[in-house]
């Protein structure tokens, strides 16, 4: 191996700044997409647990469409194909007027994709709450909304905290796909450092460490949340 290691490249200007900007962009895209995914996913998950066949068909179609098409393809479709299918004025606005179209497209695409996965988990969480709970809620005079808000969802969310953790971890890793439509997130920045300096190993090692730190932080946070909200005697974790 004849590779000239130079770890100093990581703290040299402008490369350190690039790494910082990359981390900021990765966090911004992932967190924004995470908010979309959690709110939309919860909503779809609730409707998916309903007894109405029509409702289940609509939410099921959404889930199947967004969960089964590769994210890479979805990003590409949102960015390049959707503006061509819209009326000309709207398409031109998306392509020319919208500020930072690549970042907004990436957030929307990642958010909608992850929402389909969270919807399945939320629906499964609701289904895992014993049926007697729902019946008891209705019998004690709660409306459907109240039954969901006060009885079903608080229990369902506690059940699905562990799979949700994986989903949040996946958002941060999936955000790297945004580089295919030109978002300068962490992976794109490390490739940029490799392209400018050819010190690819150092840059990719730095990215690996950053992704690990993000993942461990998310895991720790979610574990704390899981402990805090656990109902004594009912914890999913033994």
């Amino acid at each position: 191996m004849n590779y000239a290691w130079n770890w100093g490249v990581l703290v040299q200007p402008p490369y350190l700044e690039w790494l910082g900007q990359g981390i900021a962009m990765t966090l911004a895209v992932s967190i924004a997409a995470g908010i979309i995914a959690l709110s939309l996913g919860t909503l779809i998950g609730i409707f998916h647990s309903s007894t109405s066949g029509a409702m289940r068909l609509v939410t099921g179609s959404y889930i199947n469409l967004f969960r089964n098409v590769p994210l890479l393809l979805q990003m590409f479709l949102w960015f390049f194909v959707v503006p061509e299918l819209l009326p000309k004025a709207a398409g031109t606005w998306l392509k020319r007027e919208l500020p930072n179209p690549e970042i907004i497209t990436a957030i929307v695409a990642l958010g909608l994709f992850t929402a389909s996965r969270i919807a399945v988990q939320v629906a499964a969480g609701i289904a895992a709450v014993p049926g007697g709970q729902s019946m008891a809620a209705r019998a004690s005079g709660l409306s459907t909304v109240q039954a969901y808000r006060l009885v079903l969802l608080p229990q369902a969310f506690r059940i699905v905290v562990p799979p949700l953790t994986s989903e949040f971890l996946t958002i941060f890793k999936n955000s790297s796909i945004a580089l295919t439509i030109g978002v300068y997130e962490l992976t794109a920045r490390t490739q940029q450092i490799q392209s400018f300096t050819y010190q690819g190993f150092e840059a990719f090692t730095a990215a690996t460490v950053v992704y690990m730190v993000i993942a461990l932080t998310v895991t720790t946070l979610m574990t704390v949340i899981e402990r805090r909200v656990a109902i004594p005697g009912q914890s999913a974790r033994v």
Partner: protein
Amino acid sequence: MKGRIVGLAAIGISLALGVASAARAQATDTVIDRIKAKKSISIGYREASIPFSYIDAQGKPIGYSTDLCTRVAATVKAALGLPDLEIKWVPVNLQNRIPLVANGTVDISCESAVNTIGRQAQVDFSSPFFISSTRFLVKAKSGIAELADLKGKSIALPINSVPERLIKSLIERDKLNIRIVPVRDNSEGFLALSTDRVDAFSTDDILLFGLRSKAPSPAGYEVVGKPLSFDSYGFLVQKNSTVFLSLVNATLARLAREGELQKLYQTWFEPLGVPLSAPLATTFQIIAIPE
């Protein structure tokens, strides 16, 4: 601890003998040693760097750079007296070509790498065999001829490329109000231009000519602008393998002297409608070092 002292002493002695060992360099050139031991030379190629290095319908690597490296292999065969020297073709890409050259999987990477000072910290480059310039691909009759014509418009630039760095610095220097759309690769850049997301796509002009020739209607696009850069392409060789590197450069020099380089150029570039430019003709004369 003892081993460390011995190691330090060894380094000290080798530094002291630095001048003397330069004379024995031929014996310690790692690439040459490796080729002799394996009785084969590993040449890196790309799958779609047209017309430099790409694969044909049978999956065989072909192209201008590939042809040149076949000649390099012939020189190595003669110089080392290895009549049964075998050529091993190794596919490389932008991400792995440096590690593969550095760790010795590839003896020489023959494709389309631009020589920069930053990159020289990691690998050595051969003599230049091609010069490319950063220019613009625009729609025909767009009226755009220079970067300044793009004020208030958009330009697509390939993410993490040398042209991207150049155009961004020009835009900053002249404080031009031009919107930059980063694109992943050349085909996405062309897609952005053809769907009117941008008014121009800028990268190495040879790649722009290639994109134009593959467009559904080549006449609808043109390559414009005066050359904004002078980027020389070189083959990548492991750092500090001077004996091997001089064999590579000697091959290029001989081909340039004998006019074969010019002929190979015509074979690969005339079909794209890119005649030999004056700077490249001069470059061929400069690298034609006598024996």
